[in-house]
């Protein structure tokens, strides 16, 4: 880790330059996705569901899923950036090889990539929050904490993606973690229904999933309600996960790139 200096920002900057060239494409999904989901689930499904109880308080279904949409958005932005996009840069475009011939170290290249993935999650979150705010589903100023939360969640899921990138032999294999890991989290991470509805073993399983904790924190900041004991645990879970996965991803990437 001692080989990482602030030079990683040069790698971040490279990705930011590319992002600015294609900003419209990057802006559309976080703009439209919450609209689609809120329309389909918030309006369509809420007729069936009405309102439900979250930690003892009644909430409308739209209000229940809105923070989950933000959490899912953070996860997928960072995870996809540091899997498919990073893999393309590393494997097909040889961008990392070119960087490694400069004073940049592998640690700085990978740190720059993961921090970039987290930044992309922040951008997408800000756009999404704007849309969701029009529906009055975020309480301010507490809701502004979703921005730094997006960065933390982005680091956790980005480092996780980068770890897969360091070990997969070819790009098709990303289907595996997505099918076995991302999709189950999307469905069972306390996203579209309260975990209280599940049997106890399923609830405990959900607590192992990182997205569950990100969803918890997103709800806490969106509602301005920090009562649950889960709040502290979720924060330490995500921070701890980042502290483990970030250096691990760099270590594995080192092994892959330096031969």
């Amino acid at each position, binding site marked *: 880790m001692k080989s990482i200096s602030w030079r990683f920002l040069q790698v971040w900057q490279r990705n930011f330059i590319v992002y600015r060239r294609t900003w419209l494409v990057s802006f559309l999904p976080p703009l439209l996705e919450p609209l689609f989901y809120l329309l389909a689930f918030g309006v369509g499904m809420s007729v069936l569901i009405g309102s439900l109880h979250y930690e003892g308080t009644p909430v409308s279904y739209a209000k229940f899923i809105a923070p989950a949409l933000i959490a899912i958005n953070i996860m997928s932005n960072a995870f996809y950036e540091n899997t498919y996009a990073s893999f393309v840069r590393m494997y097909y475009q040889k961008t990392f090889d070119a960087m490694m011939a400069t*004073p940049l170290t592998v640690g700085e290249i990978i740190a720059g990539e993961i921090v970039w993935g987290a930044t992309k999650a922040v951008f997408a979150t800000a756009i999404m929050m704007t849309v969701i705010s029009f529906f009055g589903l975020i309480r301010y100023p507490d809701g502004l904490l979703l921005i730094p939360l997006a960065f933390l969640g982005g680091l956790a899921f980005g480092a996780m993606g980068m770890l897969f990138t360091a070990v997969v032999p070819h790009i098709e294999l990303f289907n595996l973690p997505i099918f076995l890991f991302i999709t189950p989290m999307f469905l069972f991470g306390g996203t579209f229904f309260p975990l209280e509805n599940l049997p106890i073993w399923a609830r405990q399983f959900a607590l192992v999933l990182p997205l569950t904790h990100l969803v918890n924190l997103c709800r806490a900041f969106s509602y301005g309600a920090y009562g649950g004991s889960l709040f502290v645990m979720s924060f330490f879970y995500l921070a701890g996960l980042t502290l483990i996965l970030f250096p691990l991803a760099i270590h594995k990437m080192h092994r892959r790139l330096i031969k």
Partner: protein
Amino acid sequence: MESTQSAIEARELTKTFGALTAVSSISFDVRRGECFGILGPNGAGKTSTIRMVYGLSPRSGGTLRVFGRDIADHPRSIKAEIGVCPQENNLDPDITVIQNLEVYARYFYIPGTIARQRALALLAFMSLEHRRDAKVTDLSGGMMRRLIIARALINEPELLILDEPTTGLDPQSRHQVWERLNELRNDGMTMLLTTHYMDEAARLCDRLIIMDQGKILVEGKPADLIREYVGRHVIEVSEPGEELRNHVRTARLSYEDLGHLLIIYGHDHDQLYHEISSRYCRGGCILRMATLEDVFLKLTGRGLRE
């Protein structure tokens, strides 16, 4: 300036990948201001050697000093003084031609205004200024190569490393690249070059080594190597007869018999050529200058390397 005369000093340098020994205890020096070539068939260990020099690949044994410092201890400061033109095209396809130079300059911590000045000067030097805002993927192979060389120069390196700089280029592009590299050499740039084009090596290199199977076979100036290992001239006789074969054997000439072609090496062959062409020539008979390619094939053999 460093006190040492050598830009690169390798002693018993070794690289192994598991059970495979790619580079086996080689020693060489590259002096400041010279163009030093590493030649060899595929798999000889050329690329493994230069990847160690520019710090991309840790050595397995021996010592390696670049500008008098150990690359393992000072990778960052040494890389800051090296420009690398890799074998594979690794230009950044997501950004424009000039951005490729400017963004690369950032990796060296070169301030933006200086980076822009240098980028524009390098685009002009490489005759690419008309494509400065083009996408990299729209460039021809020759243009991409020139852009890679321009990128390798963005940090004003002391040492330029070129891994097969003209592989896959058409003759016009190759000559253009050679011209630029010659200009750089004349300006005192130290260059380390790998190639399997012998004409390229003969044209650009002050000194070279020929490697095979991880070892150095010979080292020297191109002209000296030709004189020492082949001679001045080469006679090629197609469809040689038994009489000629007997003659070269009894006269103890240096030759190579390829079946349909007999190649005779020697120092002063004017007379010999007349003798052979008048007495033994049935098919074609050619007298030509000896080249580096003769040295290369004589030393590394004619078997295919795959």
